[in-house]
């Protein structure tokens, strides 16, 4: 029976060992003195008195042990002994300890980092209330970018009113670009990114403001007092976290807007809905303002309690096709579809496979690390086998020895885990601030409790794994043989060598799998970079331009012309042009048809087509290639000429086998003359096939949504930025300090997920290669050291240096060959699993396989050459004399 108090006291005693020991020693000394005194007083001789006292006492050391045993927790005491011994061992062998901890830190750190990413993107629920109820609604066959993933204001309202499956349906305006607002304060106006959200958007997500309140219905109607909600980082950064801002007004786009609240720090719109972007503030989406504007709401809905996704889907399938696109224009027809996807699945479902591959890759790294450490420990085991045999001979149980070994590996793994956590922390804080990586939720990545648990788990698993082989080996084995063995014998060595060789082969095979995987991904990535995008991203940069045309198209054309012509005067600028949308950023689509042939297009009146409203010179500034016809002119704009430039894909679809120039298309509801055809441009991403695209002049027929000035120049954008801003401010002092961004950044953003995975898997592969080469080197070098004598004899008997070298290298290559053979078979099987992640690359791509085998072979050669050289330098006389 051990009471709570006693347990507590025992724990306390554990930490006061030295003090308690010295106290009880004093006490026992006093005890003995008293006994001696008493014995003396009975007339014993001094010597006899002391002897008798000791006999009666029964062994001071034993009494001390019993005292310790009863005052503290026995297992803690054993653990303490083990730990003390471990630290002594590791201190003595600090080189080994440092290498082991570093290797473990790399392996565990990489695992923690990847797990955190996997946890954030795949495992952790979205940071909303009851996130499993949230769904995203998009068209079933989204072929035309964002426009087919969105719905009109009318359809949204009808759906909100008529459905029975959802607690609420809301959405956000899907087509706002970055820096679409300017915040006018005391100094220069600064750009801000605002997002229009429909009624009940935050309520649907279950987001509560951290300050103030959400929008009220009366703020979501026309002519209401303008109101805005601020994102937490924007409030902190730009408004200095001023709590009194709530309820006061700020100047946005020259109108005063009341700040009604601040959203919580945990709410990051960009991270969930639009990876790689940040939203600074939210303003109401007023339905009546957008009745004529077509599809522009991205819908998010919350299922009612107890309604399954399938039930909601079947209701949606009934309801949506019944809804008119626009109430005012029933002739536009009806016929929406809606695919419901859990929000989490929608956000990160596509990444599942990539992330699992990444997870496996990093798991392989940990395996390689364990194998490597097993090998290091085995080498130590050989050196320590006598120590262990001695301890067993002195009565240590096998379990006790295994426990000692396990303690050692746990200490190593623990130290590795702590260091690895630091490493992971650094990697993660770097990743979380990489706005340019287009991965959802990545901005929310952090080390949390789950990650710590995972760390603990893998640290323990690793420790057990890498201690198992040496542990079993060391604690078994024939005592007498080991004690007798002088240590340099050959027969004992062979068996040992075989285990170590097997481990190295495993390591090489694992590294081979990693290398092949990384090679395939890298080749895919290079293929993606090689794609003809249809524009030249390098040497071009864009800036969002602010102007006030008062809604007058003629005035706008004049401003556009002035902006471009003034920009062209900036030294170093080769060409300049304006567009309201840039490729690979937001997009919007309308419909197009050949005049008079609307009905012919497989039942559809109009072909969905990406729309760009541009100025003359834009195509040239972007490096897009005109294959036929001409570019726009300022005359087209000045005279409101309805003209259009198409890409090859749509020109071919509308007029197959005919010359499209001079023909009339119905573009966005207006007849327009086709004046030019350009080579296809990759619109949505490098890997997606180009769809239909048209370029319209910024005339009164078609209103642009935004204005990006694109400049082509050999000068780097950073050099140019100041003079560009100067020129823009000269024309419009209200021009906010928007960023002059290289077009390449858009491409990089589009390819960033692939780059992210390639870089990570590639790093892991290099790490695996390094570890494998360390393993090879360790084994070969060790066997050379142990065979010094044997080599000496052989050299004395006439073996040449060359022959000795060849022998060692051949041994290395044999290991490498077996490892590679196993690795290739495994790779062929595993590569099929990543086939869907590859781009224009077969999963059995021979070039990749050959290249990786060559790399592994070369590394193995180097790792084997160093010990081989050493072996060939052995002086037979010295070698034979030693030992």
């Amino acid at each position, binding site marked *: 029976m051990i009471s709570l108090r*006693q347990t507590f006291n025992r724990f306390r005693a554990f930490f006061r060992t030295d003090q308690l020991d010295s106290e009880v020693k004093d*006490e026992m000394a*006093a005890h003995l003195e008293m006994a001696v005194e008493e014995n003396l007083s009975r007339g014993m001789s001094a010597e006899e008195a002391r002897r008798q006292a000791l006999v009666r006492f029964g062994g001071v050391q034993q009494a001390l042990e019993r005292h310790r045993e009863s005052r503290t927790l026995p297992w803690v005491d054993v653990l303490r002994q083990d730990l003390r011994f471990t630290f002594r061992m590791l201190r003595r062998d600090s080189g080994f300890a440092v290498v082991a901890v570093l290797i473990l830190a790399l392996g565990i750190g990489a695992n923690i980092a990847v797990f955190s990413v996997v946890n954030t993107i795949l495992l952790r629920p979205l940071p909303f209330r009851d996130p499993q109820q949230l769904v995203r609604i998009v068209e079933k066959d989204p072929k035309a970018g964002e426009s087919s993933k969105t719905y009109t204001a009318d359809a949204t309202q009808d759906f909100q009113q008529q459905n029975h499956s959802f607690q609420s349906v809301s959405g956000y305006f899907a087509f706002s670009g970055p820096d679409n607002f300017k915040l006018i304060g005391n100094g220069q106006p600064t750009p801000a990114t605002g997002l229009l959200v429909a009624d009940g958007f935050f309520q649907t997500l279950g987001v509560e403001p951290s300050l103030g309140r959400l929008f009220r219905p009366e703020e979501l109607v026309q002519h209401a007092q303008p109101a805005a909600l601020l994102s937490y980082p924007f409030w902190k950064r730009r408004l200095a976290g001023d709590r009194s801002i709530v309820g006061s007004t700020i100047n946005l786009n020259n109108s005063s807007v009341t700040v009604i609240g601040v959203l919580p720090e945990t709410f990051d719109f960009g991270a969930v809905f639009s990876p790689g972007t940040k939203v600074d503030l939210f303003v109401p989406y007023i339905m009546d303002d957008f009745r004529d504007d077509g599809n522009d709401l991205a819908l998010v809905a919350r299922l009612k309690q107890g309604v399954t996704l399938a039930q909601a889907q079947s209701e949606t399938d009934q309801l949506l096709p019944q809804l008119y696109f626009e109430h005012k224009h029933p002739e536009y027809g009806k016929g929406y579809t809606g695919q419901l996807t859990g929000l989490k699945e929608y956000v990160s479902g596509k990444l599942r496979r990539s992330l699992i591959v990444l997870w496996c890759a990093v798991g392989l790294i940990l395996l390689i690390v364990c194998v490597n450490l097993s090998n290091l420990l085995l080498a130590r085991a050989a050196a320590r086998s006598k120590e262990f045999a001695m301890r067993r001979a002195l009565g240590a149980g096998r379990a006790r020895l295994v426990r000692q070994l396990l303690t050692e590996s746990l200490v190593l793994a623990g130290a590795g885990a702590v260091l690895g956590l630091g490493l992971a922390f650094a990697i993660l804080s770097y990743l979380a601030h990489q706005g340019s990586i287009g991965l959802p939720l990545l901005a929310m990545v952090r080390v949390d409790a789950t990650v710590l648990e995972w760390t603990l788990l893998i640290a323990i698993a690793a420790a057990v794994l890498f201690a198992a082989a040496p542990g079993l080996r060391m604690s078994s084995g024939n005592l007498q043989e080991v004690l007798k063995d002088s240590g340099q014998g050959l027969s004992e060595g062979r068996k040992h060598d075989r285990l170590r060789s097997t481990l190295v082969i495993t390591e090489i095979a694992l590294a081979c799998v990693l290398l092949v995987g990384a090679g395939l991904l890298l080749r895919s990535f290079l293929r993606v970079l090689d794609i003809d995008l249809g524009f030249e991203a390098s040497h071009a940069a864009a800036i969002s331009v602010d102007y006030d045309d008062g809604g007058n198209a003629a005035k706008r054309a004049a401003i556009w012309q002035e902006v471009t012509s003034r920009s062209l005067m900036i030294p170093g600028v080769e060409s300049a042009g304006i567009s309201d949308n840039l490729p690979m950023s937001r997009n919007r689509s309308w419909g197009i048809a050949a005049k008079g042939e609307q009905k012919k297009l497989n039942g559809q009146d109009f072909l969905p087509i990406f729309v760009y409203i541009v100025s003359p010179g834009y195509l040239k500034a972007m490096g897009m290639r005109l294959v036929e016809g001409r570019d726009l002119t300022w005359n087209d704009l000045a005279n409101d000429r309805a003209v259009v430039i198409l890409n090859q894909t749509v020109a071919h679809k509308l007029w197959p086998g005919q010359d499209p120039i001079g023909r009339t298309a119905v573009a966005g509801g207006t007849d327009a003359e086709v004046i030019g055809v350009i080579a296809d441009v990759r619109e949505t991403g490098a890997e997606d096939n180009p769809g239909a695209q048209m370029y319209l002049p910024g005339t009164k027929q078609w209103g642009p949504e935004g204005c990006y000035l694109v400049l082509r120049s050999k000068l780097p954008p950073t050099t140019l930025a100041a003079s560009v801003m100067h020129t823009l401010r000269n024309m419009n002092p209200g021009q906010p300090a928007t960023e002059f961004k290289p077009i390449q950044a858009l491409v990089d953003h589009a390819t960033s997920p692939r780059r992210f995975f390639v870089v990570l898997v590639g790093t892991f592969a290099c790490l695996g290669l390094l570890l494998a080469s360390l393993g090879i080197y360790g084994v070969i070098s060790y066997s050379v050291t142990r065979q010094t004598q044997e080599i000496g004899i052989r050299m004395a008997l006439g073996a040449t240096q060359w022959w000795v070298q060849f022998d060692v290298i051949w041994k290395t290559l044999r290991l490498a060959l077996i490892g590679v053979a196993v690795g290739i078979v495994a790779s062929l099987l595993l590569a099929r699993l990543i086939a869907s992640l590859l781009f224009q690359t077969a999963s059995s791509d021979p070039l990749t396989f050959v290249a990786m085998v060559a790399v592994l072979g070369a590394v193995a050669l180097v790792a084997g050459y160093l010990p081989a050289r050493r072996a060939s330098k052995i002086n037979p006389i010295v070698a034979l004399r030693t030992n």
Partner: protein
Amino acid sequence: MGQLKLDLLQGTLDVMVLQTLHVLGPLHGYGIARRIEQVSGNEVLLNQGTIYASLVRLQQRAWINAKWGTSDNNRIAKFYSITKLGQKQLMKDTAYWQRLAGVMRRVLAMQGEGGER
């Protein structure tokens, strides 16, 4: 002679220590050990050193207190005294041992009657 001495049953030493302190008041380890030996008429097999394991156990249960002090012949020693909690425990233990002794006596007596004798 050693063979004939009684081996101490688990837990009996603790009771002996408590009882000794209860009767004699504060005592040092040596005093307790000697007293137990004397009272038992040298019949128990007691390594005096084991008394310290018992003392620390009792201390951790807060049944006894310890204080450094000076012995009769001016020696610095740790003096132990029984606490209130210890008194209570001793009462419980006493009752327990007396019951156990009674039961043992009866059981053994029964065997004596019905046995071969």
